[in-house]
């Protein structure tokens, strides 16, 4: 059987992490192709159902990247996001899903190298966890 | 207080280092257990010959201490300190290598524990000995402390390998504080951590002269009565080297002046072994 290529979505904020991703690009800092970015205006607009939806659609990992606390373009959207992601995580956990599959991190606009690092590291984590059973688990 | 002690090869033949340390810890009630069957750390020579070998030499020293129930070892030599500390750092960073080392050491039934630590004797005196004990021993030293040591100007000399490359001696002015604590006066100078060239002194005496001179000058320009060191190689080099630099300022071990402050006799402290002798008025303090 062929090697496991995880599906990972990264929902990132337009002002910080998406900009960092652009910077990583401009600086040619490569990271795993498994990462697919979804650009949102703010992590604060991430409805927990987006996360659940992603896993139901077969995501093996969901990464959420926003501005460092205090840097949010919309005052405190990132802080709100943190709370909601926790909520989503605990919900998913009840269905026996590994918490490490969902990660929220702050990556500032100028942190291209950090973005690359996080992408590499998160992909390793997911690779280690293997394919997500979430779908089956949730159906039960 | 008891510690595993690593003398290193230059310790016993050094000018009263052993004598003075033994005398001082006796007074302070500290015990140094010499690591049984310790071997040479390889100093600055072996890392340039074979890194693997240096690792084993160092690992063996630590394991011997571990075997006797000590995780931490104490040494009085800067060269040993830096060589062994570098071995520790390399081993701690390389688990695979540790296994290899342990496999080799098992012949002697030894095991290297990577929680091992190393410190210099001065750290014991400066950080472990409680203030109270100092005040007690210094004021009411064996034969009563001689007056007037505060008129004696001491130039501290750290050498290179205790402070560099780590730069994390804490407190950074440990030696100065200790000198002041036992009642002497320190003189500030810019050569405290300059290299004295001990490791090249034998084959390259001529080329090493300027290194010795700038350190001695640092002390002389600041009107020091004596220089005090923490390493047998530094002490020997600065002491014998002055024959060629035309200066004659005594170079002691920090343990020797501490000994004086504790009221010990110059002979007990091996001060008679210095090539450049300490003047009487210094030994007995200046009253006027």
């Amino acid at each position, binding site marked *: 059987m062929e090697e496991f290529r995880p599906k990972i979505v990264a929902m990132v904020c337009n002002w910080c992490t998406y900009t960092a991703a652009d910077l990583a690009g401009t600086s040619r800092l490569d990271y795993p192709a498994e990462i697919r970015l979804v650009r949102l205006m703010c992590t604060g607009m991430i409805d927990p159902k987006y996360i659940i939806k992603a896993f139901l659609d077969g995501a093996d990992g969901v990464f959420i990247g926003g501005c460092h606390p205090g840097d949010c373009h919309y005052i405190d959207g990132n802080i709100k996001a943190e709370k909601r992601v926790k909520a989503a995580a605990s919900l998913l956990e009840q269905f026996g899903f590994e918490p490490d599959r969902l990660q929220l991190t702050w990556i500032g606009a100028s942190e291209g190298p950090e973005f690359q690092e996080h992408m590499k590291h998160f992909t390793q984590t997911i690779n280690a966890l293997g394919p997500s059973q979430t779908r089956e688990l949730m159906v039960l | 207080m008891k510690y595993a002690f690593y003398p290193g*090869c*230059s310790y*016993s*033949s*050094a*000018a009263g280092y052993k004598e003075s340390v033994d005398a001082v810890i006796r007074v302070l009630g500290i015990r140094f257990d010499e690591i049984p*069957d*310790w*071997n*040479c750390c*390889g*100093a*600055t*020579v*072996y*890392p*340039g*010959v*074979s*890194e*693997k*070998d240096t690792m*084993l*030499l160092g690992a*063996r020293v630590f394991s011997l201490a571990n075997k006797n129930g000590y995780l931490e070892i104490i040494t009085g030599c800067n060269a040993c300190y*830096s060589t062994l500390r570098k071995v520790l750092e390399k081993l701690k960073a390389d688990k695979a290598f540790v296994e290899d080392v342990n496999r*080799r050491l098992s*012949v*002697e039934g030894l095991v290297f524990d990577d929680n091992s630590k190393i410190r210099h004797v001065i750290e014991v005196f400066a950080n472990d000995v409680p203030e109270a004990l100092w005040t007690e021993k210094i004021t009411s030293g064996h034969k009563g402390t001689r007056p007037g040591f505060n008129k004696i100007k001491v130039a501290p000399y750290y050498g*290179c*390998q205790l402070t*560099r*490359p780590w*730069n994390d001696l804490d407190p950074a002015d440990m030696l100065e504080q200790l000198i002041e604590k036992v009642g002497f006066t320190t003189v500030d100078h810019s050569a405290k951590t*300059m*290299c004295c*060239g*001990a*490791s*090249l002194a*034998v*084959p*390259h*005496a001529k*080329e090493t002269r300027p*290194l010795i001179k700038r350190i001695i000058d640092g002390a002389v320009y600041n009107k020091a009565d004596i220089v005090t060191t923490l390493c047998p190689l530094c002490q020997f080099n600065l002491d*014998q080297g002055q*024959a060629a630099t035309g200066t004659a300022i005594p170079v002691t071990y920090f343990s020797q002046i501490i000994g004086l402050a504790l009221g010990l006799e110059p002979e007990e402290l091996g001060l*008679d*072994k*210095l*090539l450049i002798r300490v003047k009487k008025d210094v030994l007995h303090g200046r009253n006027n």
Partner: protein
Amino acid sequence: MKHSYGKRSMKTDPELRDSFYNSPHGKDILRCIQCGTCSGSCPYSDQMDYAPRGLFALIRDNEMAEALSSNTLWFCSSCYQCIERCPQEIPVTDIVYTLKQMAVEMNTMPSGLKMPDFYAAFADNLVHFGRVTESLIMAKYGVKHPLDALKNIPLALKLMTRKRMDIKPQMTKNRTSIRAYLERHPQPPDTSGEKNS
């Protein structure tokens, strides 16, 4: 015969270069901005044919062979001043150690250099006794460099009067095992006579 337009730089064989660059800190020299802080800080740079900065420049020019036969390696006193000050945080001393090991391994020590003989004396002492004794190192080294030995006689006498001349070797009990540990100790080059470095 091959025609040449001028002095050509020694071509280093790639293996030599790679084994250096693949050593623990080898690639760090690529960071060097050639500011000379290391050389300026080095207490023995005046004696070196190439001070550390120059050495790194040589290596980056593929002149590995020349770097390995430079006397620089043998004048490093391991004072770490260079490391402390290097603005690029290059572990200069450790890199010199690596180069020295390569030089010992390949026996590229320039002849007439005294340090390798001193190293040999030291290592020999260590290998035999597990510990070293200054007087014995001096004796062994003195055979190769009688002048240095002679110069040291007054000092030796003085030390004796101070009861500091240990002429019986210090040694460990378990010498065989220590010898077993040590894979290598330097074969000094045949330094015929006293050429000062």
